[in-house]
């Protein structure tokens, strides 16, 4: 029963039909990318709160990393909070206790998350479909328990007062705007990296696995190896996102390793559009904005999130960008 791993994503219009733009983007994608770029540069000057923008970008990168797995390999990981949160803890520890500069702390967070992803991915790819989701969830729960107990995470208190430090030992990041440019750069690098991976020959094999794994195997691809590499890449980028977030806020806490966070990133990607290039960013923006403005509503936030989940699955499986793309008959 497990071998019939059908596509998790509605098939989108063939990309070869659209004209090619720069960076391997199609023309509409390139236009959207320019829009995103304009937003990144303009937003802090348009009166938007920089800390809020940074939070948005961190979650945007997190969602893109998650989308790399679900959207292009068809693997639903329900434990991505483990890599996001662990990245945050490692970066926080490195910046605060070891005294690394921010760029090294972020890299360290990504590296440890990649290692964790390698081990968990190796175990989890033995099963497909919903089993894969349950296994990743259970393994992530183990990480959560580890983080509650481990001395360096500070248990319930978390790691507090993490210094933003000086970029390359030179530029002081404590002003919000300076930090913003760093976060924007990290986001763009991560985003373009994912785009590059997806459009490489490696990415084509990933998509072949998503569409029909037995056929990919019969073509001579060692699908397990491809899945594992995709898993490691995804968890590394999730770790980078978490690491950046912990530097922005100066804290790393249990919230980011909890299973609810794993659910949130699934929601962001689903809302934006599974398997679209820009969808996860849009989804992250929608969910983070919603959380921010509904903070006073307490537990209703959970109810609303659940409602969005249900609505998306039942009625808008393509997500916001997927829906727009389908209307315009382009690929976004």
């Amino acid at each position, binding site marked *: 029963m497990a071998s019939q791993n059908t596509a998790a994503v509605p098939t989108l219009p063939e990309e070869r039909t659209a004209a090619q733009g720069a960076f391997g983007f199609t023309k509409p994608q390139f236009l959207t990318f320019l829009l995103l770029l304009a937003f990144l540069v303009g937003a802090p000057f348009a009166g938007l709160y920089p800390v809020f923008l940074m939070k948005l970008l961190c979650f945007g990168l997190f969602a893109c990393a998650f989308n790399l797995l679900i959207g292009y390999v068809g693997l639903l990981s329900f434990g991505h909070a483990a890599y996001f949160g662990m990245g945050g803890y490692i970066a926080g520890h490195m910046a605060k206790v070891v005294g690394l500069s921010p760029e090294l702390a972020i890299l360290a967070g990504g590296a440890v998350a990649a290692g964790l992803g390698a081990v968990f991915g190796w175990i989890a790819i033995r099963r497909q*479909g919903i089993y894969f989701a349950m296994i990743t969830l259970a393994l992530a729960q183990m990480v959560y328990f580890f983080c509650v*107990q481990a001395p360096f995470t500070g248990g319930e208190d978390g790691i507090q007062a993490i210094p933003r430090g000086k970029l390359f030992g030179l530029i002081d990041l404590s002003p919000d705007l300076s930090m913003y440019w760093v976060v924007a750069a990290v986001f763009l690098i991560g985003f373009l990296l994912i785009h590059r991976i997806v459009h490489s020959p490696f990415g084509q094999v990933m998509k072949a696995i998503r569409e029909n794994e037995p056929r990919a195997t019969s073509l001579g691809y060692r699908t397990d190896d491809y899945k594992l590499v995709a898993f490691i890449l995804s968890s590394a980028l999730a770790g980078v996102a978490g690491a950046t977030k912990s530097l922005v806020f100066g804290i790393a806490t249990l919230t980011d390793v909890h299973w609810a966070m794993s659910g949130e990133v699934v929601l962001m990607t*689903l809302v934006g559009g599974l398997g679209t290039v820009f969808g996860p960013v849009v989804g992250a923006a929608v969910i983070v904005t919603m959380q921010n403005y509904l903070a006073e509503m307490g537990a209703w936030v959970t109810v609303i999130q659940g409602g969005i989940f249900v609505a998306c*699955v039942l009625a808008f499986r393509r997500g916001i960008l997927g829906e727009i793309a389908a209307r315009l008959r382009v690929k976004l």
Partner: protein
Amino acid sequence: MDEIFGIPAPLLFGQLLLGLINGAFYAMLSLGLAVIFGLLNIINFTHGAQFMMGAFAAWMLLNWVGLNYWVALILVPIIIGATGVLMEWLMIRRLYKLDHLYGLLLTFGIGLIVEGLFRNEFGSSGLPYQIPPQLSGAWDLGFMFLPVYRGWVVAFALVICLATWIVIEKTRLGAYLRAATENASLVQAFGINVPRMVTLTYGAGVGLAALAGVLAAPIYSVNPQMGSNLIIVVFAVVVIGGMGSILGSVITGFGLGVVEGLTKVFWPEASATVIFVIMAIVLLARPAGLFGRA
């Protein structure tokens, strides 16, 4: 006093027994998941929330309507099972033609809604539910005091699990169910209303979760989070057992309860993670699970 591995034997027997009690909950919950999975091919992520709803329904019946534990034991699975039937009929059945993952996402979303609503209504500090007077008190077993209620939980859960097994393996209805699992359209062609059977199966699985919730209400704090903490462990139990057989999920549930109980004596700090570690080992050695079909 005899000692086994440095632990007094009476203490060890007591712990084994307690492990069995926790195992009873694992077994009942993984049984419900297995029944649903067998026919619907979805993982019911709402299961934890439905377990919690069962406990709350027992509390509501007692405090709002004045119906006691024994009535709750019969009514609650029916009421919560009916909400399950409604849920299947309104939402889940729209997803059968899609990838199974959408079923998982949908039930996860519904779980969030239910948990959030209960937290709004009742807060999260938990509600009291007393042990029914007929089952309060304790037996002196020589090596430990066993609260009567805990003994009842194990016995009752065993009976329920056995009954479910008999229904599925030994009755005509069960035969239809198993046939529909293998080839739904063929069974439909024989004039059996498969969609209705699927709906009722989901309701029954949900009812099992609610029944476990009623059993849990007197000993655990009745709070909105009680299900979500448990369900992740139950998922691991399901992965270890594999969802191939009803009996398999019951044996795995009880067995892992005992293993967890023993860990609480020898290495209490690890008792939360031991099931996940076992899951990883089983996956490496036997990816389909102990009782699963590859």
